[in-house]
C-alpha cells in the first residue's frame, strides 16, 4: 500500500481514546496494583511459613499463615477480576467508539473519496485495524501490572540477597528483549503466510467462477500446477515462521530455567552457609516462575504497539478527511417549483486538465423529460451526478427551480432528486424498507402505491412474504428487472421534483427492458426526468433528446427528427453500421 502514514497521528489517536476512558483505565490500573501486591505477597508468605511456622514447629502459626494465604489469594482473585473487567470492556469501548466514528465519517465523505476507495479497504479499517488497536488497549492495564510485578519482585528479592537477586534476574530483561524480537520477526513471516493464503483463496475463487472456461479449454492441469506452486510457497513461508518458533519458544523456558539453576546452585550454597533461609530459597523459585509469562508479554507488547500505531494511522487517514461537499450550515430551503432545471455554462473535471463537461448549458422546463445520448465518455452520467450535488461544478451553475444547488440545504436537495442507477443496489432488508429507504415514515399505502406505479406490486405480491420478503445479498434473489423496478419505486416514493434514470435499462435483457419501460412511462408523466441510455426504445420515451459529445451539447430535438436529420445521432445509436 502506498498510503502515507502519520504514525504520530496514529499514536495521538490511541492516546486520545485512552484519555476518554480514563476512569475505567484508572480503575483497571488500581485493581492491577492490588493484584500485584497480593500476587507478590504469596511467595513471601510461603517463605515465612517454611522458615517460621515449619522451622519453629509451630502448628497454630502454620494454620494462621495458611489462612492468610487463602485470604490474600481471594484478594488477588478479586482484583484480577476487576482489572480484567475494566481492561477488556474498556478496550471494546474504544473499538466500538472508533467504529461508530469511522462509520459516520465514511457516510459523510463525498463521492470523489469513494471513487478512489474500495469497500474492502474501508472494511479492513473498521475490522482488522480496529482489532489491532483493541488488542493493544486491552493489554495496557494488564501489562502495567506485569511491569509492576517484575519491579516489585526484583525489589523483594534484592532485600533478601542482592547478589543472588541480580544473578537470578539478569535473564529476565533478556527474555523481554528476545520476546520483542521474536514477535517483530514473526509478524512479517505471518504476513507472508497471510498473503499466500489470500492468493490461494483467490485462485480457488477464480477456479470456481471460471470453471466453464477452464474446462472448455481443457486447462485443468495448468490450474493444478498453479495451485501446486502456491501450496509449495505457502509451505515454505509457513516453515519460516516455524523456524522462528523453533528457535525462540524453547528459549522462553530455557532462560528462566538457567535462572533457576543459579538459585539452585548459588542459592543452595548460600542456604548451607546460612546467608539465606530455606524459605527465602523457595520464595526466589516462586518469583522466577511467576515472572516468566509477564516479561514475555511485555516483550510482545512492543511489536503489538507498533502494529496498533500503524493501524491507528490508517484509521486516522480516514477520520481526518473533510467531505469535499459539506452539508452547508445555513443552506436555504428549496424554493417552490416543479423541477425546472438549468445548467448554465457548466464546466467540470474529475481530474484537473481532463475536462468532462465544458461550457455545458441546458434548460429542462418543469415536467419535461429529456434523454441524454452520446458516445461513452461524453459526460452524460456526469450531468446526472451534478444534480444531486455528488460533485460540485468547476465553473457555471446548476440550478433547480431558480436555486443554485450549492445554496440549498444538502439533504433537502437530495430528497428532491430521485435517482435510479444502472446497477440496482438493494439492502439486505425487507422490500418494504428498501422502497421506503428515502422516506422512512411512509405508510403502507404510500409504499404500495409507489410499487404499483413502478409495476412492481404484482411480483411483490407473489413473493413468499410479500412486502416483508428480505432481499439483498443476504436474502431472496430477484431478477435484474425486478430489482430495477424496486429501484424505481424507491426513487418515486420520495416524490422528487427531478427523476434521473442513469442507464437504468442497460444491464437487463430486452424482455426485461420492456417491463421496465412500461413502469418508466408511467412514473415520468408530468415529472421532470433525465434519462441516460443508448437503447432506442428507452430514448423514445423522452420528450426531447440531447445529443452530447465531448462534454458539450451537439444537437437537441425529438428522437424522430434527430434520427432523420442528424447523421452523428444515427452513428452514435449504431444505426449506420450496415447489417452483415
Amino acid at each position, binding site marked *: 500500500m502506498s498510503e502515507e502514514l502519520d504514525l504520530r497521528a496514529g499514536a495521538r489517536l490511541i492516546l486520545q481514546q485512552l484519555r476518554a476512558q480514563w476512569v475505567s483505565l484508572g480503575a483497571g490500573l488500581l485493581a492491577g496494583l492490588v493484584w500485584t501486591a497480593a500476587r507478590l505477597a*504469596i511467595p513471601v508468605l510461603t517463605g515465612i511459613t517454611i522458615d517460621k511456622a*515449619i522451622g519453629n*514447629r509451630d*502448628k497454630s502459626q*502454620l494454620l494462621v499463615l495458611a489462612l492468610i494465604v487463602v485470604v490474600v*489469594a481471594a484478594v488477588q*482473585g478479586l482484583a*484480577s*477480576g476487576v482489572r*480484567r*473487567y475494566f481492561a*477488556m470492556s474498556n478496550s471494546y469501548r474504544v473499538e466500538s467508539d472508533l467504529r*461508530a466514528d469511522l462509520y*459516520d465519517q465514511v*457516510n459523510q465523505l463525498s*463521492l470523489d473519496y469513494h471513487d478512489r476507495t474500495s469497500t474492502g479497504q474501508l*472494511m479492513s479499517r473498521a475490522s482488522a485495524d480496529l*482489532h489491532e488497536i483493541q*488488542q493493544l488497549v486491552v493489554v495496557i492495564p494488564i501489562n502495567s501490572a506485569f511491569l509492576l510485578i517484575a519491579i516489585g519482585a526484583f525489589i523483594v528479592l534484592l532485600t533478601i540477597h542482592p547478589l543472588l537477586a541480580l544473578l537470578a534476574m539478569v535473564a529476565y530483561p533478556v527474555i523481554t528483549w528476545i520476546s520483542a524480537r521474536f514477535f517483530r520477526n514473526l509478524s512479517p513471516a505471518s504476513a507472508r503466510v497471510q498473503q499466500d493464503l489470500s492468493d*490461494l483463496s483467490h485462485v*480457488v*475463487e*477464480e477456479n*470456481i467462477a*471460471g470453471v*466453464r*472456461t477452464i474446462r*472448455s479449454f*481443457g*486447462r485443468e*492441469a495448468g490450474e*493444478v500446477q498453479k495451485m501446486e506452486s502456491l*501450496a509449495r510457497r505457502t509451505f515454505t513461508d*509457513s516453515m519460516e515462521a*516455524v523456524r522462528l518458533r*523453533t528457535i525462540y*519458544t524453547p528459549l522462553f523456558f*530455557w532462560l528462566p530455567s*538457567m535462572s*533457576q*539453576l543459579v538459585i*539452585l*546452585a548459588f542459592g*543452595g550454597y548460600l542456604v*548451607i552457609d546460612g546467608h539465606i533461609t530455606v524459605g527465602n*530459597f523457595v520464595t526466589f*523459585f516462586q518469583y522466577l*516462575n511467576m515472572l516468566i509469562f509477564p516479561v514475555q508479554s511485555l516483550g510482545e507488547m512492543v511489536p503489538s504497539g507498533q502494529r496498533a500505531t500503524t493501524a491507528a494511522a490508517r484509521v486516522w487517514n480516514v477520520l481526518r478527511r473533510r467531505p469535499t461537499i459539506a452539508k452547508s450550515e445555513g443552506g436555504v430551503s428549496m424554493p417552490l417549483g416543479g423541477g425546472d432545471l438549468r445548467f448554465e455554462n457548466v464546466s467540470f473535471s474529475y481530474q484537473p486538465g481532463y475536462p468532462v463537461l465544458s461550457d455545458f448549458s441546458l434548460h429542462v422546463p418543469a415536467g419535461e423529460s429529456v434523454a441524454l445520448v452520446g*458516445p461513452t465518455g461524453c459526460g452524460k452520467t456526469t450531468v446526472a451526478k451534478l444534480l444531486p450535488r455528488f460533485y460540485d461544478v468547476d465553473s457555471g451553475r446548476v440550478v433547480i427551480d431558480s436555486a443554485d444547488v450549492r445554496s440549498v440545504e444538502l439533504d433537502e436537495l*437530495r430528497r428532491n432528486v430521485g435517482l435510479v442507477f444502472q446497477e440496482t443496489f438493494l439492502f*439486505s432488508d425487507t422490500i418494504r424498507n428498501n422502497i421506503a429507504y428515502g422516506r422512512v415514515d411512509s405508510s403502507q399505502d404510500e409504499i404500495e402505491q409507489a410499487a404499483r406505479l413502478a409495476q412492481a406490486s404484482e411480483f411483490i405480491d407473489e413473493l413468499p412474504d410479500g412486502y416483508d420478503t428480505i432481499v439483498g445479498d443476504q436474502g431472496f434473489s430477484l431478477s435484474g428487472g425486478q430489482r430495477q423496478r424496486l429501484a424505481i419505486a424507491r426513487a418515486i416514493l420520495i416524490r422528487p421534483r427531478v427523476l434521473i434514470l442513469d442507464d437504468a435499462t442497460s444491464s437487463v*435483457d430486452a*424482455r426485461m427492458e*420492456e417491463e421496465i419501460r412500461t413502469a418508466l412511462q408511467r412514473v415520468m408523466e408530468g415529472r421532470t426526468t433525465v434519462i441516460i441510455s*443508448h*437503447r432506442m*426504445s428507452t430514448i423514445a420515451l423522452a420528450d426531447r433528446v440531447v445529443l452530447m459529445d465531448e462534454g458539450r451539447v451537439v444537437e437537441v430535438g425529438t428522437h424522430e427528427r434527430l434520427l432523420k436529420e442528424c447523421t452523428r445521432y444515427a452513428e452514435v*445509436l*449504431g444505426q449506420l*453500421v450496415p447489417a452483415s
Partner: protein
Amino acid sequence: MMRGGAREAALRPRDTDARPNSHSLRGVTKMLAPRWPLLTLSTVSIVASAALSLARPLVVQKAIDSGIVDGDKGTLVTMSIIFFALTMGVYVAQAASVYTTALAGQHLLRDLRIRLFSHFQKLSMSFFDGENSGRLMSRMTNDMVVIADLVNNGFLMVVQSMLLLIGTVIILFSLSVKLSLVTLVVIPPLIGATLVFRAASERAYDKVRDRIAEVMIHMQESFSGIRVVQAFAREQHNAEQFNAINEMNYDANVDTVKISALYIPFVEWLGGLGIALILYFGGRGVIGGDVSLGTVAAFIFYLDFIFQPIQRLSQTYDTVQAATAALNKVFGLLNEEPELREDTDARPLPQPVRGELSFEDVMFAYGETPVLEDVNVRIEPGQRVAIVGATGAGKSTMAKLMMRFYDPRHGRVLLDGIDLRNVRTDDLRRTMIMVPQEGFLFSGTIRDNILFGRPDATEDEMRAACRELGVDAFIESLPDGYDSVVSFRGSRLSGGEKQLISIARAFVADPAVLILDEATSSLDPETEGLIEAAIRLLLQGRTSVVIAHRLSTAETADRVIVMEHGRIVEDGPHTVLAAAGGYYAALYRQWRSAPDAHSV
C-alpha cells in the same frame, strides 16, 4: 487470558460434527504414513520434553532435602549439574518437537491442498453452481485455516498438556500419597468451574458472533451502497441504526468479559488455596517428620503443572473440535466420486476432426424434471447453427451436453460418430471450445488470458490473431498493452472489452467446433460492432453452435434450431422458418417491428 487467536477461534461458527469419522481418520493416516520417521522423531521429542520438564522439580526437591537441608555441598553440585543437563535436554527436545510436528503438519496441509484442488478439477459441474460453489470455497479456505491452526499450535499443546498433567499426578502420588490427596482437592472445582465457564462463554460467544456479523453486514452494505445512501440522504438515519447495532455488539462483548471476569478470579483463588493446603498439611507433615521440606517445595512447584495444562486444554478444545469437523468435511468431499469419467477404453479422436455433432434420443434432467427430451439432431461439419428459444427452453443445456459438462440421462451425444463418453477428455477439449456469455478473465496479463487455451503459441501468432480479429487496437491503447494486468474481479476493462479478449482466446486456441453463448446485455454500439465483426471471423470455417439471444444472429446462420420446453420444435434455414408461419415466424415478425426492443 483470552488471546487474539483464541478469540478468533471462538468467533468461528461451531460445528456439531466434531468426531473424527472413518473417512478422515483413514485419509489422514494414509497421508501421514510415508512420513513415519518424522512422526517417530516427533513423538520421541514430545515425550522426552514432557519427561525432562517433569524431572526438574524432582531434582530441586532432592537438592533441598539431601543437599541444602543436610548441608551437603557435593550433592548440591551434583544436583545442579543434573538440573543443567535436564534444562539443556528440555531445550533440545522442545525445539525438536516444535519443528517436527509443524513440519509433518505443513506437509499434510500442502498435500491436502493440492489433492483437494486436483479433485475439484474432476468434480461434476453441479458442484460449481450457486450454493455448492460456496461449499467448495470454504473446504479450500476456511477449513484449511482451521486445520492449520491445529497443525501449528493445537496438536502439540494438547499432547504436551496431557502428558504433563498425567506425569505430574503420578509424580505427586509417588512423593506423598497423603499430600497428593489433599492437594488434588482443588482439581474437581477447577475442572467443574472450567466446564461451566466453557458452556457459558460458548453461549456468550455465539451471541457475539451474531452481533459482529450484523455490524459487518451493515457496514459492508452501507459502504458499497454509499451512492444510494447519499442519494437518499440517509446518513443520519443510518448512523442511528448503526449505533444501535454497534452498541449491541459492545454489550455482547462485555457479557463475555463478565463471564471470564468471574472465572479467572476463581481459578487464581484455587491456586492460592492449593498453596495454602500444601503449606498447612505439608507443614504438619514436616513437623511430624513424615514429609520432607523438599517434598513440600516440590508440590508448590508442581502445582503450576496441573493448573496450566487444564486451562490450556480448555483453550485448545475449540481448535481441536473445529479442525476435526473440517477434516471430516474435506475428506467427505475427497470421497465424492467425479460423475463424469472417461471410459477406460476411451479412444483418441481420429484426426483431422470433421466436426459433426449429433444428439440421439437425448433426455437430460438436473433434478427430477426433464430439461431436454427426445432431442435428435445432426449438425453437419462446418455448419453454422443458431439455437433460438425462450429462457429455460433448454438452449444452454444443449451446449453443456455438447461440451460434456454433463452426460445425458438417456441417449448419446456424438462427435464425428463417436459417443463423447468414449472420447479422451483431452482430445475433446482440444476440439471443442465454448465461449461463455460474460467474457471471463483470469488474474494475469492480457497475454496470459489470450494464450490460455494454447500457452505454446508464439507472440507473433497471438498478435497476428488479434490483428485479424480487430482487437489489437484496443489492447495496444492500454498503458501496458498486452502486459496489462487484469483480474477476474475489479478489472478496469468494460464488459465488452472482456468479451473481445475471450473471443481472441478462443480464436488462438483454434478449435474444430465452437459453441458460443451470445451476450444478453447491450453495450454501446461501437463496442458491439467490434464484437460482432470479431465473432464473424471466429466462427468462419468451423462447425459452430450459437445460443442466440438476438434474431439478427439467427438471420445470418445456416440453420436455425428452435426450442420450446426442452424439445426441438422447428429446425431449418432462417428463410424457410420465417416464411413457414410457425413459432419462429411469429417471433421474427415481432422482432422486425421493433428490432431494438424484442429479442429472445
